[in-house]
């Protein structure tokens, strides 16, 4: 009995240490964001802000079109998801329930997207986007992601689980394939959609490199780019309090969503690992 409680104490101690390493950086930037500009230049770290202030956050809103970046990020992340939902639903249904010539080969061609590193084709995708006249638009950021092998794969598994009799019964009642999808298959697959949606939104909300390559102006830039660009200006790189305030403004909403729906997020990411 004694050894069990000392064991659980050790487990808690180890987990606490690990959790501290993960959380201290976050706490540190939150506290920094509320400090006055010159307060941070001290040899001995001062944890609590001497005179807590919101000026850094207001400064961010003055220094850049922050809400514009926010809006662009929302349009990009949710726009990608909206189109993906259509493409993956149709493809997943065909691969799960229909017989057609070349199906297996086509499925492998789909899985190629999971196997290749997207960064290795960035030059060519940049050229394609330029030729399509999409350079420096939100659509350019979205374009390479409108089909999703992962999403199709995930939904295909779910659709395969729907009993065939259900579809036959629906067909006898004069329910066509599209209507069956809309009223039966999609509602049954909602957990799959949710898992895919959370992973997709997170990924595209956070993306940096591809948007960096294909955007040039604030009209199309997303939050992560705004942050990166600000950090590289003379003003941003010298002003830690404002930079940390902006970092906090970028991560606040996704982080709050994660803390509220922790289980859902973690389960979704678990599936993304097992599927991809």
């Amino acid at each position, binding site marked *: 009995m004694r050894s069990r409680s000392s064991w*659980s104490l050790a*487990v*808690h101690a180890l*987990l606490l240490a*690990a959790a501290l390493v993960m959380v201290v*950086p*976050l706490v*540190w*930037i939150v506290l920094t964001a509320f400090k006055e500009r010159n307060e941070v230049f001290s040899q001995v*770290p001062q944890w609590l802000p001497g005179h807590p202030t919101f000026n850094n956050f207001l400064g961010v809103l003055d220094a850049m079109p922050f809400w514009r970046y926010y809006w662009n990020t929302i349009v990009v992340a949710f726009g990608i998801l909206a189109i993906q939902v259509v*493409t993956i639903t*149709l*493809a997943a249904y*065909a691969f799960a329930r*229909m017989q*057609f010539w070349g*199906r297996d080969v086509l499925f492998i*061609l*789909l899985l*190629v*997207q999971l*196997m*290749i*590193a997207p*960064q*290795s*084709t*960035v*030059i*060519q995708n*940049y*050229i*394609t986007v330029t030729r399509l006249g999409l350079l420096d638009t939100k659509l350019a950021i979205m*374009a390479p992601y409108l*089909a999703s*092998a992962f999403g199709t794969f995930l939904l295909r598994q779910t659709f395969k689980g729907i009993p065939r009799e259900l579809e036959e019964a629906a067909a006898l009642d004069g329910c066509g394939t599209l209507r069956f999808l809309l009223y039966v298959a999609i509602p049954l697959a909602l957990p799959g959609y949710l898992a895919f949606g959370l992973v997709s939104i997170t990924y595209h*909300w956070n993306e*940096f*490199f591809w948007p*960096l*390559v294909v955007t040039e102006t604030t009209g199309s830039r997303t939050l*992560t780019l705004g*942050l*990166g660009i600000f950090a590289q200006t003379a003003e941003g790189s010298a002003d*830690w309090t404002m*930079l*940390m305030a*902006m970092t906090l403004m*970028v*991560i606040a909403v*996704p*982080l709050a969503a*994660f*803390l509220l729906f*922790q289980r859902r*997020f*973690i389960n979704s990411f*678990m599936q993304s*690992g*097992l599927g991809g």
Partner: protein
Amino acid sequence: MSSQSGRIGKARRRWAQTLRPYAYILPTFVFLFIFTHWPILRTFYVSFFKWNMASPTMEFVGAANYVQAWKTPLFWQVLGNNLLFAAGTVPLTLAVALALALLINQKIRGLALYRALLFYPTMIPMAAAAMIWLWILTPNYGLLNYYGKWLGLPDVHWLGHSTLALWALVLVGVWKRVGYYMVIYLAGLQVIPEHLYEAARIEGAGPWQRFWKVTFPLVSPTTFFVGVMAVIDAFQAIDQVYLMTGGGPGNATNLFIFYIYQNAFRFFDFGYGSAISAILFLILLALTLLAFRTLHRKVHYA
């Protein structure tokens, strides 16, 4: 007359039946072709051409771009940097992730909280993580130098140091990814049947032996899978390089994607950029295929 139109109707319906699946997959394959298949083929094609600012029309040069890579010391340095970065991040991330998954897999209080605190870096953009760590690693006022002294760490400008800068990026990489891999391990641990541990206990195996004889072999498919993912991740790292070091000091942290970015989008050399992209593509493809082959032969299935 009516029987003929009936036959046409039937034929049309059969056609619709045959074509329907293709109509369903068409949207996916249009996007997939333009942004996945075509760019792969085209990257290889362009890699055999001279195509840059100086010669804006493509000129066939055979393998010249590959020869250029072979002869460029920086190319080898970048490859070496990236291998070192992978060797630094992957085993460390996997070991810590597995250890954390084992700890969190116990029936303890506060589990959800621990899990959230360990997982949250997965949720934030790498760009934000880069900012956080830039501030922590900054010389003079940074948190790490102050508290690092207690742990015996040197008081240095981490990101300006020719060997330590890469290890600073390793640190950020592990911090950002370890929670994600922990969760994947957790899924692997939860399918190990309890009776195997019971049997091991009856045989008199201690916790250490139970780990090495039961847990470790049975999570090896996960280890394997996560390992390959982590190596591929390591070869895709770019955000933190771009934002934290810019590849410096003196190319000490120049990794593959950043090198591609420099050549294609700063020096506008699409020919050479495509050649090194093709090399990266082949490295990652070889890793993936090797992974799947060994997976079938060696790894223990639960």
